[in-house]
């Protein structure tokens, strides 16, 4: 057991025992060691089962939305969870006094599917060491490059630590900068190629709403994409364009770049390419340095008298 894990357990235990929180959301044992599950500890015994290892994948912020969870709620927060919590606070869907954030610095989570492919066997444990990942299977421990083992969403992460926390498990790391190389790559193609690309992606869409349900920014009490006047239930390419356009636009300026939407998509649609496009343009047009970090005013809820007319330059590129 890592030091951070034991610290997490004792902290959660303390929070629960003292009544400071009624539930602690973290990760707990799953069906396989490489797939820890979101875990809802409600007593010290539950806290003793909390896990913290490189396989802890899914983001947790959205669970704060669940009705009926007795509050206040403690939550383990990596950078992505932290931004998700900030998002929910900024959107006033969660109130600050009902959340107790336990911050932890995350250097990326290992994707069990990638790890399985790399190691050729079910991984039992993983360790991150700089640019390498040590994977242990029944047949021993081997080293692999970080990029081939981590979740895609972790590879472009700029926020290893939450921006604030009520307690810390370790030293927070300063945030980095988010770049958008893939957006630029797609922009270089011509309109028809871009359309063909998105057609191939969106024609796979099942409209299962996994992206929406994973997103800490997509939390409307009643989603417009469920309203028949906006979108009927027919699964067709044009409706899927409508769906993904609307979804991406609705999180434009609000997306925290956690990548959970893309991670959740069973059809593997590269949804972050949509979100990133908005983020990149918001950065370039409106000078928002970190368009994925919740701010007091969302970029589309404000203006400057001398904002550029982003349509003037033409083309997809700024």
């Amino acid at each position: 057991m890592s030091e951070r894990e034991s610290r997490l357990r004792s902290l959660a235990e303390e929070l629960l025992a003292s009544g400071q929180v009624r539930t602690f959301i973290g990760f707990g044992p799953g069906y396989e060691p490489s797939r820890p599950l979101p875990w809802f500890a409600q007593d010290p015994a539950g806290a003793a089962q909390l896990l913290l290892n490189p396989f802890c994948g899914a983001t947790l912020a959205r669970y704060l939305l669940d009705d009926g969870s007795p509050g206040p709620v403690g939550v383990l927060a990596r950078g992505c969870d932290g931004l998700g919590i900030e998002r929910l606070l900024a959107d006033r869907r969660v109130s600050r006094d009902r959340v107790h954030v336990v911050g932890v610095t995350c250097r990326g989570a290992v994707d069990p599917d990638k790890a399985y492919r790399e190691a050729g066997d079910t991984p039992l444990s993983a360790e991150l060491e700089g640019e390498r990942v040590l994977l242990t299977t029944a047949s021993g421990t081997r080293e692999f490059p970080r990029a081939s083992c981590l979740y895609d969403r972790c590879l472009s992460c700029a926020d290893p630590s939450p921006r604030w926390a009520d307690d810390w498990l370790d030293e927070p790391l300063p945030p980095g900068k988010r770049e958008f190389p893939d957006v630029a790559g797609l922009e270089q193609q011509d309109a028809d190629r871009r359309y063909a690309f998105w057609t191939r992606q969106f024609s796979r869409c099942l409209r299962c709403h996994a992206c929406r349900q994973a997103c800490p920014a997509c939390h409307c009490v009643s989603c417009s994409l469920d309203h028949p006047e906006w979108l009927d239930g027919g699964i067709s390419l044009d409706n899927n364009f409508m769906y993904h356009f609307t979804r991406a636009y609705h999180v434009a300026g609000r997306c925290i770049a956690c990548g959970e939407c893309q991670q959740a998509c069973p059809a593997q649609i590269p949804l972050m390419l949509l979100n990133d496009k908005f983020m990149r343009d918001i950065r370039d047009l409106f000078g928002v340095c970190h368009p994925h970090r919740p701010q007091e005013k969302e970029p589309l809820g404000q203006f400057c008298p001398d904002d550029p007319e982003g349509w003037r330059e033409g083309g997809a590129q700024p």
Partner: protein
Amino acid sequence: MPRTGVFVCWCGINIAKTVDVEGVAAASRSLPGVVHAETYKYFCSEPGQNLIKEAIWEKRLDRVVIATCSPSMHQATFREAAQAAGLNPYLVQIANIREQCSWVHSNREEATGKAVALVTAMVAKVRRDEPLQAFTLPVNRRVLVIGGGIAGMQAALDIADAGYPVVLVEREPNLGGRMAQLSETFPTLDCASCILTPKTAEVARHPLIELLAYSEVREVSGYVGAFTATIARKPAYVDWDKCIGCMLCQEKCPRKTPSDFQRGMGPGKAIGVNFPQAVPNRPVIHREHCTYFQTGKCQVCARICPVDAVDFNQAETTQEKQVGAIVVATGYEVVAPDQFGEYGYGKYPDVIDSLAFERLNSSSGPTDGVIRRPSDGAVPKEVVFIQCAGSRDPDKGKPYCSKICCMYTAKHAMLYRHKVPDGQAYIFYMDIRAGGKRYEEFVQRAVENDGALYLRGRVARVYPEDGRLVVKGVDTLSGQNVEVFADLVVLATAAVPSGGAPGLAQALKVGTDEHGFFNEAHPKLRPVETLTRGIFLAGSALAPKDISESVAQASGAAAKVLALFSREELLADPLVATVNESHCSGCFWCRPTCPYQAIEEKALRDRQVATVNAGLCQGCGACAAACRNGAMKLRGFTDEQLLAEVNALCL
């Protein structure tokens, strides 16, 4: 499905020449819900309107689409006709097939096709219209005037004279504002007090004006017809009700102080009034100067007061006033002097601003009206006036023209010459702006009769030499460097919004420009209104103004208030935003898009949701577009309606 009637107007040949009106009527008969369609030469005529009314009765129509000229022409006409026939007027829509169809297209087939599309869209839209009632807002016919300067007083008097009660709030202990500080006024050289004092007296004794001096407006809620203002009364440490205005306290106060009213020149006292004719004629203890407040000893005033009115324990009190309209007349100040280091302001006592020069000229001023320079009391023989000190200077953050300086500087030069006949006035200027009745003549008089020497150019520096001041500048007309030796330098400093304006703007939720001046609703057509219905502007609160303009605008604002008060109830357009509470997540990202601060919070059992103050909403729909899930709905332009239009137009 509703029963819709479609009326296609020929507009004589205006429409019928290019659009096959019968074809449009025929096509509309097959549209969903259309049970009647007819054409007529002029539906806007009385017989035409009667046809519509008859069809509403006979065909039991509950929706009407009129394909005719632009809605800006006759929408109101047709809505009234429908209403006369018993149909809710908001169940009428206009398809604009004249201005945006028959007049701009020549191909009959294409124009007809477009006309059918426009009618189809309006049939789809009207089907989703709800009957709406123009709702009424009761009007509390009392007005709050904020600012007791000449503009505020004028507005208050005009309104009170018309018979409506006025609450007049003044931040200072007395009425008069900037004008009370002036000596004479351009272009007539009337004595300011002589024309101001009758006004202040009139205000003071007007039975319908409630004067709240030494008070500030802290909060304003509500909307047109029903504002509630929270007004704080600052502690004067003198019970004004007991005080009889004998001013013994001022006389006996041992503490001599520089006076703000006298622009930092003496003589002031820690207790007293700003000037003898002040209204109300009641003293105030200036806590920062008072020996008792500073050291705990003295209390001379309290001992001397014959009616025991001094009360060192007085605290701020607040009261609420219900009013139906608000006039903002907060006026201006001059820019803080620390901005003028290069002119030596603050460093050399003989560099003063023009308000101080007004005080030097004033018979109630520190020198009893004799022009004496502050440093040694000598009468200056050469005076340099520097115009645009701060104004028209983007570097100082005031790119605008303060407007009044050209005129008062000419006046200063003139008054100076009258008092110091052997004196010489030099005026550094950028341009002379003397637009206004008899203004140009006034400036010419200063030059021709009173020998004011105008030098076009900027002053680079003012520095002392041999007990005098050297004003160094460039004469841009000759291109020569000039140096003028002066005994006194007067800066025509930029006018800026009065210090209380930003806080007040926030309380009123009324916008200001980047300099802090209040924004008018429209720079040309609605210059005394704000975007918030029921809040009006007068005087220099909007931008620097001279007295006559301020008075004119004040009367204008008063006229707007009176127009508002001419009715007991206001009709409000029902095409405002409403919230579908079951959809609203309470994220409030709609709020920053509302220019009217009309979005408020409402508590549901499990969450806060947005609610729209219909009295404030003007129906722009920015909130509806900002709302991600369509919880915010703009009546008359709902998502369903606009989508239905899109769908219909794309058929």
